[in-house]
Every structure is written in structure tokens, then in C-alpha cells.
């Protein structure tokens, strides 16, 4: 965190290399957050560029009241929400249902204990299946699950990034998991 503040301070003084280091450090995090929320690799890449462009132009307005990563996540969420709002006007939909083959694959992988035991091809397909499950959720649940499960943020950090109370973080995560459970109902046989 201290390192981020130092880099940002250097960048504010005109050190372009400091900004490059910040981009290098956070590009994967930002990209994966967006990809998990938006569900499209090309769009995630474009939005990630927009996020860093905003950081570049707005760095001067960052007062350091929160950590740099919280500020960065906040910009990322806002950019994702802009994109989702744009989509609402356009009617873009991604497939969210699972076919039998996908259901079996997910069951098999979850049945095996080792993550590395799955072949690379299956791993790639599995990523698509997980993303499909995410795409099927309402946007606020997608965002909160991304921060918790993909980025591993604490409830406190999520509350700061999403500007919601801790109570709401708990309830939204609970509901998000319930929704996801409904979508993945084939994994949970009745009466088991």
C-alpha cells in the first residue's frame, strides 16, 4: 500500500515510469475483475484500458483517503456499470444456460480433489462454464461475488468499494450465493 502511494506521488510529480509500474502491478487484477463482471474478453480489455486512462488523468484528484487499490476498484466498478448501462439500451445477451456436456464436466471436476488434475482443454472449458454461471446473475451480485471470490476482498473493503453498508455486503453475498446455487442446481441433487 505504501509502495502504491509512493509510486502515485512520483507520478504526480511527472514520473511516467512510476505510472508504468502501477499499470504493470494492477493490469491483471483490473482485467480479471472486469472480465468476471462483463463476461467478454475483448470488452474487458477495452474497459481495462479506459480504467487506466482515467487513473492517468484523475491521479491528481486522488487524496489518499482510501488505499490506491480501493480507488482503482471503484473506478473499475463505475466503468463496468457504464458498460452494463450501455448494454441495457442495446440488448446484448450472453448464453447463460448449461448443456448436458457442461453439467457433466463441472460435476466431474468438482468430484476430483486436485485442481491440477484437469487437462488444460477442460480447464479452459471450465472457465467458460463458470463465467456462464456468473453472467446469469444480476449485476450487483456479479460484482459482489467477483470482489469476494475472485479478488478475495474483505467485507470491509467491499463495503468501501461498492459504497454500501457492511450489513448489505452480508445480505447481497448471501443472496448472490443463493441465486448461483439455483443456477447450478444440477450439482445439488434433490434430497441429497
Amino acid at each position, binding site marked *: 500500500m505504501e509502495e502504491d502511494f509512493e509510486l502515485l506521488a512520483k507520478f504526480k510529480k511527472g514520473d511516467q515510469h512510476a505510472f508504468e509500474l502501477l499499470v504493470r502491478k494492477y493490469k491483471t487484477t483490473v482485467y480479471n475483475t472486469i472480465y468476471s463482471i462483463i463476461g467478454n474478453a475483448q470488452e474487458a480489455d477495452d474497459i481495462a484500458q479506459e480504467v487506466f486512462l482515467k487513473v492517468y488523468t484523475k491521479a491528481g484528484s486522488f487524496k489518499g483517503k482510501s488505499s490506491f487499490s480501493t480507488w482503482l476498484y471503484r473506478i473499475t466498478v463505475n466503468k463496468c456499470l457504464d458498460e452494463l448501462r450501455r448494454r441495457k439500451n442495446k440488448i446484448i445477451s450472453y448464453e447463460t444456460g448449461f448443456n448436458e456436456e457442461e453439467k457433466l464436466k463441472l460435476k466431474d471436476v468438482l468430484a476430483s480433489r486436485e485442481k491440477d488434475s484437469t487437462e488444460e482443454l477442460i480447464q479452459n472449458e471450465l472457465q467458460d462454464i463458470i463465467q456462464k454461471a456468473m453472467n446469469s446473475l444480476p449485476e450487483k451480485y456479479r460484482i459482489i461475488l467477483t470482489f469476494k471470490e475472485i479478488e478475495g476482498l474483505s467485507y470491509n473493503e467491499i463495503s468501501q468499494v461498492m459504497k454500501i453498508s457492511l450489513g448489505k455486503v*452480508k445480505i447481497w453475498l448471501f443472496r448472490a450465493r443463493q441465486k448461483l446455487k439455483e443456477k447450478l442446481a444440477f450439482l445439488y441433487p434433490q434430497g441429497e
Partner: protein
Amino acid sequence: MSCKKFRLLLSAYLDQEITKDEQEKLLEHLKTCSACTRELKYLKQMKRIFLLKEKKEPQEFFETRLFARIRSKRERFAWRAYLPVFKKSILAVLIFFLLVVGLLNYRNFLYHRPAEIISDLLIDTEIEDNFEEELLEIYYGPLG
């Protein structure tokens, strides 16, 4: 506490975000409630699904593309760097202009009103000439 409330706690328990007191109550409940125990198992499985999700890298030349965009943006808006200086100059010119306009108007205001009053009192030159002719006629009889 009802099962419904324990379900809410289960989600937070999974994330290690509950108090010690809540945890004790939850673990006590799980000993006797098979439905909540099964729910916890499902939730753990779901968490495992996300652990399977691998971190992806952005597309190729992410930084190169980003810095090219930054450069082009900087060039396009290079004039903005001079904006603070421009702003001050524009402000100075504006103030000077307003002062000049204000001063002129003030002078007009001062001298315009008396001029208006005088013009009201002034007799038309034609009437004045006629009046003069009439006077001469009175004194010296019809002219020419």
C-alpha cells in the same frame, strides 16, 4: 434463532466474517440441523468452483496500446497545459474590456441625460426662423 438466520450466518462464516459469539451459536446449531449442514457443504463446493477460475492476462501489448492512447490524448489536449496561463490572460482582458465599456457607459449616462433635457427645450430651427420673420414683420411691416 431460526434456520433462515443461520443460513445468512453460513455465508459469512464461509468468508470468516462472523464474530466468535455468532460462530459458537452456528456450530452448535450445525450439530443438530442436517439441512444447514448440507447447505454449508453446497456453499463450500460453490467456493471451490471459484477457486478453479484461473486468472487471465489482458490481451497482447496491453501496456503498449495504453501508452499509445495516453500519448495521443496528451498531444490532442496539449493546449490544455497552457489553460491556466490562458485563463489568467483571458480574465485580465475581460476585466479591462468591462472597465472600458463601463467607463464609456458611465460617461454617456452622465452627459446623455442633460442632452436629452436640452433637446426637449430646443425649438426646431425652422420654427425659430419663422418666429424671427414674424417679429420683423410686426416691427417693419410685411417684408419684401
